[in-house]
């Protein structure tokens, strides 16, 4: 079945990059801010030098041998959703916006827990966004627990898998407890993925490295997201940044496997171009996308599941730039065959979220997934008999042939929100207005997959304890 597939590096080229990254790890090494984490690698054969840990090639090879090639991802309720490692194309809103852009506003505001619930409900009703993510950081909650509380509305109102992450060492175990409160075998049949990001160049902060250690120990999938900034925190050349990116991800793979052989990891990334004048982190700059396609081939070389940040925009409003950047990066993500694609709904360097943009991005996701699905070459699809009959017997009008009706729903993807109507049926509203109406419609009539009461009580009690720790009143939504 012909499917458009985009690859960048040949096998030989990928091997060259891999060998350079191994050289980086064994000669330049990685800095672990937390000495306890450094110790894990040193005790296994890493070499301490000048505050850094050199990681020999054997250690990397051993880790790669132990790393699972595929990860089965489940829903909250235990239903199998997809296999990561086989181009799963799971779009989800990006991570951790600190602002939300209301409809019609030009100034984003801090989001609250109620916004987070709205986001969850909308994602639950969008067919092309297959996973939830903790995409808003609520401002009406004490800062110490802002990472963990984000899981609450998702677990309560949605059954889709979750892409999330912690900002602190101490809240990760709480988040894991929340998952287990909802389903006892949350580790065995995982429904949440946690992001952990090394700090470029070649460094791991205490928080993210300890998170990775805890995740590996528990057996929860960790998405290792390197984020080289071209020309600032990484070489300005795409190839150089790719070498560094790959080395950073490998260092995370090594750490995870040293903690627990077989720990599930996803090869991730959020490369960016530091805008040469402003230093702003451009996530969908062409150079950043080339790095992503490059590391996608590195993940392919190692046969690991792979994640990316695409389908988002660095624009400030839901405008032409937002649409163009989201669409062009989405098609690249789909043709690149990524498993997890984070970004729909995001604006302004992944710091601002728009519910209307999420609706429009869902359209893009459907569109690009349709392109990615390709087409079949069966006799029924090649349709030689149909051509003969239509041309010779039906005056060339395929609308009259039963084949059209039989195949059209399978073959053709219809857009829901985008304007494809003739002017006579056009309601004189632009696409942004349409998206807003859809937001309102879903919030009023959409499906909510509420957690069953008994589990909800368990979840509530962990949620409440979280607030008690910081002497605050829980925000129940």
């Amino acid at each position: 079945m012909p499917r458009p597939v985009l690859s960048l590096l040949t096998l030989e080229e990928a091997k060259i990059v891999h060998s350079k990254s191994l050289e980086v790890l064994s000669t330049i090494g990685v800095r672990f801010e937390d000495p306890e984490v450094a110790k894990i690698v040193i005790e296994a054969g890493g070499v301490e030098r000048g505050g850094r840990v050199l990681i020999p090639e054997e250690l990397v090879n051993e880790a790669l041998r132990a790393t699972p090639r595929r990860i089965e991802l489940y829903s909250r309720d235990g239903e199998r959703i997809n296999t990561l490692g086989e181009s799963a194309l799971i779009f989800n809103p990006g991570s951790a916006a600190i602002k939300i852009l209301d409809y019609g506003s030009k100034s984003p505001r801090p989001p609250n827990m109620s916004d987070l619930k709205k986001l969850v409900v909308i994602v639950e009703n969008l067919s092309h966004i297959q996973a939830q993510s903790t995409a808003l950081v609520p401002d009406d909650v004490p800062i110490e627990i802002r990472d963990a509380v984000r899981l609450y509305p998702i677990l309560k109102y949605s059954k889709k898998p979750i892409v999330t992450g912690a900002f602190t060492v101490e809240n990760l175990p709480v988040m894991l407890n929340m998952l287990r409160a909802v389903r006892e075998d949350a580790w065995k049949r995982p429904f949440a993925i946690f992001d952990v990001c090394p700090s470029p160049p070649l460094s791991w902060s205490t928080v993210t490295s300890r998170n990775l250690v805890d995740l590996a120990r528990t057996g929860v999938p960790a998405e290792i997201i390197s984020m080289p900034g071209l020309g600032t925190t990484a070489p300005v050349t795409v190839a150089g940044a790719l070498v560094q990116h790959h080395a950073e991800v490998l260092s995370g793979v090594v750490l995870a496997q040293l903690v627990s052989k077989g720990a599930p990891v996803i090869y991730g990334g959020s490369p960016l171009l530091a805008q040469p004048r402003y230093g702003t982190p451009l996530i969908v700059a062409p150079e950043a996308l080339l790095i992503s396609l490059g590391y996608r081939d590195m993940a392919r070389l190692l046969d690991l599941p792979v994640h990316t940040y695409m389908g988002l925009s660095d624009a400030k409003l839901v405008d032409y730039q937002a649409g163009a950047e989201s669409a062009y990066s989405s098609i690249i993500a789909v043709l690149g065959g990524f498993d997890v694609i984070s970004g729909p709904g995001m604006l302004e360097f992944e710091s601002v979220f728009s519910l209307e943009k999420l609706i429009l991005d869902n359209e893009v996701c459907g569109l690009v997934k349709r392109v990615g699905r390709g087409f079949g070459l069966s006799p029924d699809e090649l349709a030689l008999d149909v051509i003969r009959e239509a041309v010779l017997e039906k005056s060339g009008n395929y609308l009259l042939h039963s084949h059209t009706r039989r195949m059209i729903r399978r073959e053709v993807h219809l857009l829901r929100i985008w304007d494809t109507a003739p002017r006579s049926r056009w309601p004189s509203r632009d696409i942004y207005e349409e998206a807003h109406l859809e937001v309102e419609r879903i919030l009023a009539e959409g499906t909510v997959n509420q957690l069953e009461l008994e589990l909800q009580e368990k979840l509530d009690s962990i949620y409440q304890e979280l607030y008690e720790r910081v002497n605050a009143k829980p925000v129940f939504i």
Partner: protein
Amino acid sequence: MEGLKRELYAAIVEGDADRALAVARRLIDSGVGAHGLVVEVLVPAMRRVGELFERGEYFIADVIACAEAFKRVFEDVVKPRLERGEKRRVAVAVFGTVKGDIHDLGKNLAKVLFEVEGFEVIDLGVDVTPEQIVEAVEKYNARVVGVSALMTTTMIEQRRVVEELRKRGLRDKVIVIAGGAPVTEEWVREIGADVCGDDAFKALRRVKELLGVF
């Protein structure tokens, strides 16, 4: 002499530190005073660099190279020759990148620019806690505090710095710059800082206005 001055000016603007250093030495040997060198050549050259940056012709990397050329001439040639008391000291500024953030590009750029303008910059480096900043403010009697954050997740630490200053009764004694690419005027107001440091040149201008030095 004028030819050499033009050459030094060009070397700084092009970010050629080796050439700048060599020409500066020749100028000093020909009898140009250290202070004159700063006022007539170095500062105008850095202003030109700032203009080129504002006009979009220069990138951050260019500005850093120019600042480095400036700094080397300043440190190696000018500073040793400045007579005691002649060196202008506008104020002490304490700079650091917030806790949890190890990006220091913006902070380093700001540091050089502030030093150029006569500030004594106490650079606390990266991953700096609010307590470390406040201690440095007390120790060096600083008038300016610059806290930089590159990541949206670490920006919140800037608020903690302001809170810590307030707690120790130092808030009104210092001008607080919240620096870094994600920082906005709105954020500065929200956390109770004074100057938006999304752009180091702009921040410097604003700090000088607030201090009443031009």
